[in-house]
C-alpha cells in the first residue's frame, strides 16, 4: 500500500490503516514530542494528542508537500499549545545576550539522553524557542508568530536558552570528571 493509499484509508477511518500509519511515524513524532515536552510522560501525552489530531484532520492534508512535514507540524503545534498558555513569570531582563555561546566538548562526552534531559529541563518558553530555531530551522519571525511573542523576545529567549544549556553542559562535564577521578 502506498502512502497515498494509506492516507486515503485513514480518511475513511480504517482502523488497520490508522495503526499502520501510527507505526510508520510514531518514532519520528515521538522524537519531536520528547524535544518539545518537559518530560517523558508529557511527551507521551503530546504524542497521543498529536496522533488524534492527525487522524481527525487527515482529510485536510492536500497532498502538497511531504506528509511527514505535515504531521511533524501538527506534533509541534500540539506541544506548543500545551505550553503556550502557561504564563512564564520570568524575572529576567529581555535584552539580548550578545556573546557567542561555545563549549569545549569531547567526542562522545555527552550522550543523547543527557542532551535531551538538558533541553527538557529548560523553562517551557526557552525550550520551545531553542527547539524551533536550532533544531527545526524556524526563523525568529515565524517563532514570534507561533508563540505570539515579539521577535526580540524570541531572540532573547534563545540566548538565555543557550546560556542555560552551556552552563548545564559544563556542570555535567564537571560531574563526570569528578566521577572519573574518584
Amino acid at each position, binding site marked *: 500500500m502506498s502512502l497515498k493509499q494509506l492516507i486515503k484509508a485513514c480518511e475513511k*477511518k480504517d*482502523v488497520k490503516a*490508522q*495503526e499502520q500509519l*501510527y*507505526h510508520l511515524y*510514531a*518514532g*519520528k513524532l*515521538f*522524537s519531536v514530542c*520528547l*524535544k518539545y515536552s518537559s518530560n517523558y510522560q508529557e*511527551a*507521551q501525552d503530546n*504524542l*497521543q494528542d498529536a*496522533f*488524534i489530531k492527525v*487522524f481527525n484532520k487527515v482529510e485536510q492534508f492536500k497532498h502538497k508537500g511531504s506528509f511527514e512535514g505535515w504531521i511533524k507540524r501538527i506534533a509541534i503545534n500540539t506541544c506548543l499549545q500545551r505550553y503556550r498558555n502557561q504564563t512564564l513569570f520570568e524575572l529576567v531582563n529581555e535584552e539580548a545576550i550578545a556573546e*557567542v*555561546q*561555545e*563549549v*569545549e*566538548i*569531547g*567526542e562522545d*562526552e*555527552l550522550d*543523547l539522553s543527557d*542532551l535531551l534531559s538538558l*533541553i527538557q529541563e529548560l523553562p517551557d518558553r526557552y525550550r520551545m524557542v*531553542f527547539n524551533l530555531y*536550532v*533544531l527545526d530551522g524556524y526563523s525568529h519571525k515565524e517563532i514570534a508568530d507561533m508563540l505570539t511573542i515579539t521577535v526580540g523576545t524570541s531572540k532573547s529567549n534563545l540566548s538565555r536558552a*543557550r546560556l542555560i*544549556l*552551556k552552563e548545564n*553542559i559544563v556542570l555535567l562535564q564537571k560531574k563526570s570528571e569528578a566521577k572519573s577521578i574518584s
Partner: protein
Amino acid sequence: MSSKKHIDRVFQEAFKEFEETPPASNWNAISNRLHHKKKRRVLALPLWYKLGGAAAVLALLTWSVLSYFYQESPTNQIVDEKKVTPFPSNKEEIFSVSPKDSETEATSKEASSSAITTSAVEKDKFLNDNNTSLGKKSIISSSYTKVTKASQKEASNVASSTQENTSSQAIDTQQNSQKYTRENSFSVPLEKNEQEQATSIRIAQAEMNTKKDENSNTASSEKISLIEEAQKIAEAEEIVALSNTSTKRWEVKPMAAPVFYGGVGDGNAIDTRFSDNSTSSDITLAYGVNIGYAINDKLQVRTGVNQVSLSYNTQDISFNPSVGAVSLDNVTNVNAARNIEIHDGIPSTPNAMAFGEIQNRVIEPIPGSINQTLGYIEVPVELSYKLIDRKVGVNLIGGGSTLFLNDNAIGIDSEFGRTTIGEANNLNEVSFSTNVGLGLDYELMKNFKLNLEPVFKYQINAYSENPGNFRPYFFGVYSGFSFKF
C-alpha cells in the same frame, strides 16, 4: 580529544538522526480514544431515546384507547355476503362485496344515492344483524342489489350506472327474500390512502337473481370483472398517493401560545403556610419553533425549542417590615427583602410587636399577593398521530418535554407596586413534563397550514423538595403556521 563547538552545533549534530520508539501502550491509548469518541457520540443520545420512547408509548396508548372507543379502524373491510333465499319458484343467490372505509364520512356523499335505495331495504330488517356496529354507512354497503364503486369519480360513474341497472330488480328481490340461508364475511385490511378522494374507496357489489333469468350467470361474471377492475384502480391510486406524500416529510412550525400555569393538589410551592390560599395564574406567553418529521402518513415525530414564561399568584397574604422577619420556606431572599415579614392572611396583631424596641413604630401589614415567575427553555419530543387528514386536519399529540429553568423570581404585588423578595430555591434546573394535546390544522395552501394546538403539559419533577401537595402543570393553546418541505 575535545574541540570548541557552538552550542547549537552540539545539539544539531546530536539530534540529527534522533528517533525514539514510544512505548506500545501509546497506540492502545490512541485507538481507545478514537474509538471512545465514536462511542461518546452515541452515548449523548439515550436521554432522547428514552423520551422518544416515552412519547411513542404515550401516543400509541392514547391512540389505541381512542380507537377502541370510536371503533373506527383505519382499514377497509370487504364483506362478502351470500344469501340464498328460498323462493317458491326459484332460488335466489345474492352476494355483496363491499370493502368499506369506515372512517371516511365523505363517502356518504358519494354513496348517498345508494343510501336512498338502501333505506328501503332497511325497513325489511333482514339485513340488520349484518353490520349494525358500523352504523349508517354499513347499511349502504349492505345494499345487496347493486354494484357500487365510489373510490373516485370514474369508479362512481361505473357504480351509478350499475346501480341504475340493478336497483329496480333489487326492490323485487328484497320483497321476495325473507331469510338468509347463508352468510359469510371476511375483511381485508388495506393500506389507508392519504388523498382525500382516495380515502373513500367503496365498492359494493351485489349479485341478484332475475327470476328465472337464464342470463344471471353471465351477468354475475361481468360484475365480478368490474370489481376486479375497480380494485386495480384503487390500488393504482394508492401507489400514486404514497409516492406523492413520501416526498415532503419535514415540517417547520413557528408557534406562539398563551399559557396558563396551575397546580393539581392544594399545596403551595413557596411555603406550606399558604397551602390553602387561593391561587391564580397570569396568562403568559410561550413561543418557539418546532420541527416535525413524518415517519409515515399518519405518524409524525416532532421536536423543537420553546421559551415558556409562567406566572403564578398566591393571594391573601400581607407583609410588613420587621427586624425578626422569617423568610419563606422555599425562597432565597435577596438582601433588600431580608426584613420583610410575610403573613398568611392579614393578622390582627402584627408579629413585630414581639420586639419591644420598635413596638411604637409598628407598621400595619399591607395586603398583597405573592407572584412567582418562572421561565423555561422547553425541548419537546412528541409524536403526533393524524386522526383526520382533510382540509381541516385533526391530530393527537403525545410526548414529553425537557425543561431548562432560565428565569426564577418571586415578588410581592400590592397597591404600592411590586417588591422583589428573591427566588425559589426548590426548583430543579432541569425537569420534565408529559404532554398530551390535540392538534388542529387548516390547509391554506398545499404545503402551508395554519395550526391550533391546545396542549396540556404535566410537570414531573419541577420541584426538588417541599412541593407540599403542589403538582404543577401548564396549558397552552399553541397557534402558528407550518410549512412542509
